[in-house]
């Protein structure tokens, strides 16, 4: 019963910058996730790699050390995800990063998916029929 938490570009930006007005909000979600993980609940925070590109998150750059250390995992745009994302992009007319979020939502085997985003409308569009918990920041 894994709970997958997906970050969008704005969530990544907010988390990376302590001066960002939404920083505490996203830190709070990460804190709750960490506390639940420590209680043995299967929960993962991930970032689609296309979102990482959009955000400028280079894991080799020291500026991104906080996010790297928080063990936020990559979900790569592999062949399967690329096919799904291409279809979503075609149908929903969304940027590549949003299409990749949609592919993650649609392809995951996790029991529950949450997306932390500044654009709930796009997330619901790319999720199609898949149930998704959307947190608007």
């Amino acid at each position, binding site marked *: 019963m894994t709970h997958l938490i997906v970050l969008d570009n704005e969530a990544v930006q907010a988390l990376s910058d302590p001066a960002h007005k939404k920083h*505490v909000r996203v830190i709070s979600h990460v804190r709750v996730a960490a506390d639940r993980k420590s209680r043995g609940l299967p929960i993962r925070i991930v970032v689609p790699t296309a979102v990482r590109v959009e955000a400028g998150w280079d894991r080799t750059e020291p500026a991104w050390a906080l996010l790297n250390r928080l*063990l936020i995992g990559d979900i790569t745009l592999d062949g399967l995800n690329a096919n799904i994302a291409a279809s979503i992009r075609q149908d929903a007319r969304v940027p590549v990063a949003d299409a990749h979020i949609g592919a993650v939502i649609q392809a995951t085997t996790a029991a529950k998916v949450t997306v932390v985003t500044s654009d709930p409308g796009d997330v619901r569009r790319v999720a199609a029929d898949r149930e998704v918990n959307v947190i608007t920041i």
Partner: protein
Amino acid sequence: MDVLQAVDRITELLESGIGQTSNTSMRIPTALRDAAAVAVRELGAASSTTALTTAALRASLEAVVMRAVLDDHVRQHPEARPTLGDLAIAAAELDGHPLAGEPARIRQAAVEVEARHPDAEPEDVLLWAEARAIPAS
């Protein structure tokens, strides 16, 4: 070794792959080992007791890392420390809780709970907020 050095070393080890294994002299309670064996054999909890133990240990280490990083972050940036109210709102949002859309109510509940229970958890706050939301009969 300071906290971040320890975090980086643990992360490096967690990411270095699982190909190399070693026998360990770690002693665990016999009953715990036997319980794990039953969980694997009868409940299909994992492919083996080793896999079950390894997964649990990995998840535990990941949680330790995440919490240590967050603690270090708020030590360096005290303004980034979430309040109990912030955490309760985040917990509600992650759960899709009915009160997630009522942050003011959750914040008020957090103030009330924290006044009596300084070590309260976000879930305690949500329970209190929910109880307060039930109309008196």
